[in-house]
């Protein structure tokens, strides 16, 4: 029986909007949970990216055209500037070449010294060039997409730098693109050393600003303004000795055990278009499991007692 208050449905239009809302909202929440906690969906993501990437490539066209047009006008109107720039670059190249020779000599010397001391030779790494297609797509994120992916044999975890220092790390590889997480991304950590005195620490991204911060630095730590932080190479991901950041502000509040140290990245994290991707370094030996190491130590102690 149909009563007056309920409208009769002449056509079957499937489930009601509320039912659909609940279904799709729960599905989304499930996906969110799985993606955030377990990262199971990377293959689905790269499959779907094949659908989306044509649009993305197309969207970069206006920017590329604009750049070509401005390049064209630069060459037309500023020839004198270009000549001067060329001269400057030649001068810089000569001084750089001299320094490079020095560096090669030092490298050789270093290698010999290391051989004498029986230390393993430092790893050489090669690099390839890539171009940024997208700067930060999302307000909440410090990530960029570059124009090389699985087709150029990139892998997750490779280090990305520019001519000055570390820019970030590859965190996701699509067939033709890869996603680079910048060092300024919230909670992105880089193990570093202070160049001046070799103090080891870890620098974290601040997230919503293009800054970095040092956490857990005791107030008494020997760190000053303008100190340069370089990678320590301890974790086996970043090659050692590459500049990362410069200390700009130190707040030492005696009420807190740790100093508040703010740094700015040295590399043009938000600036350049071209980036260098370093080939991944050879794996370090596995870090010993803490539990098994402790158990072994216990056993040894027991054995000694028994003796």
């Amino acid at each position, binding site marked *: 029986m149909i009563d007056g208050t309920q409208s009769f449905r002449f056509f079957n239009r499937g489930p009601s*909007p509320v039912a659909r809302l609940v279904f799709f909202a729960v599905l989304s*929440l499930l996906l969110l949970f799985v993606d955030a906690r377990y990262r199971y969906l990377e293959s689905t993501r790269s499959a779907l990216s094949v*659908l989306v990437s044509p649009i993305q490539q197309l969207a970069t066209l206006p*920017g590329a055209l604009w750049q070509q047009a401005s390049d064209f006008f630069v060459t037309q109107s500023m020839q004198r500037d270009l000549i001067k720039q060329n001269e400057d670059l030649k001068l810089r190249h000569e001084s750089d070449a001299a320094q490079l020779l020095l560096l090669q000599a030092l490298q050789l010397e270093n290698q010999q010294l290391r051989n004498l001391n029986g230390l393993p030779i430092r790893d050489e790494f090669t690099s390839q060039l890539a171009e940024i297609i997208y700067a930060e*797509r999302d*307000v909440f994120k410090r990530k960029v997409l570059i124009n090389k992916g699985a087709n150029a044999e990139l892998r997750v975890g490779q280090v990305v730098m520019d001519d000055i220092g570390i820019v970030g790390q590859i965190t996701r590889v699509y067939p033709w693109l890869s996603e680079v997480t910048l060092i300024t991304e919230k909670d992105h950590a880089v193990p570093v050393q202070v160049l001046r005195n070799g103090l080891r620490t870890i620098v974290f991204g601040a997230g919503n600003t293009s800054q970095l911060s040092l956490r857990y630095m005791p107030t008494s730590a020997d760190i000053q303004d303008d100190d340069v932080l370089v990678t320590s190479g301890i974790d086996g991901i970043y090659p050692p000795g590459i500049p990362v950041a410069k200390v700009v502000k130190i707040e030492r509040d005696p009420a807190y055990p740790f100093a508040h140290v703010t740094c700015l990245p040295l590399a043009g994290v938000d600036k350049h278009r071209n980036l260098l991707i370093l080939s991944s370094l050879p794996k370090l030996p596995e870090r010993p499991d803490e539990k098994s190491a402790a158990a072994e130590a216990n056993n040894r102690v027991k054995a000694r007692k028994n003796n």
Partner: protein
Amino acid sequence: MPYQYSKPEIQRPVSNTFIILSALAALFLNGLPWEGIGLMLRPDFVALVILYWCTHKPLRVGIGLSWAVGILADVADASLFGQHALAYTLLAFGGVVLHRRLQMFDLRQQTIQVFWIFALTYAVYALVNWQANGYVVWLYFLGCITSTLLWIPLSIMLQAMQQKRVDNNHP
């Protein structure tokens, strides 16, 4: 109250191609290289187009399709899977449920109604981000205002593009 908006014109049926093309165009506009404050001010074109179709053709474009577009947006933005999808699901629900009421109003009055739907969508997106990453960029909500401001131009434009061949027989 002036009743200006729904002129007694019979609208032509919208082709699926047109709907899909508009969604792709919105994804394209979202994908343009916005940076810095431009990124904060960037209207969410995809959300606009979805809301337009959900309020004008609720039987053709509904919650399921919006969810699918949201998944594509998640892939394009490299955000968490389901982040855009959840926001667009709510957006589409708002559009489908309120479509009769919205069509009663003229464009100016619609803008106010639409603002709250966008605000909800943006809030859900920011909430998910807050849960996942632990912080919120408040300037992000500026995009909600610019999206609302674009509602009138977008409605007029899509309306005009649909009614291309209205009076063929009466020159």
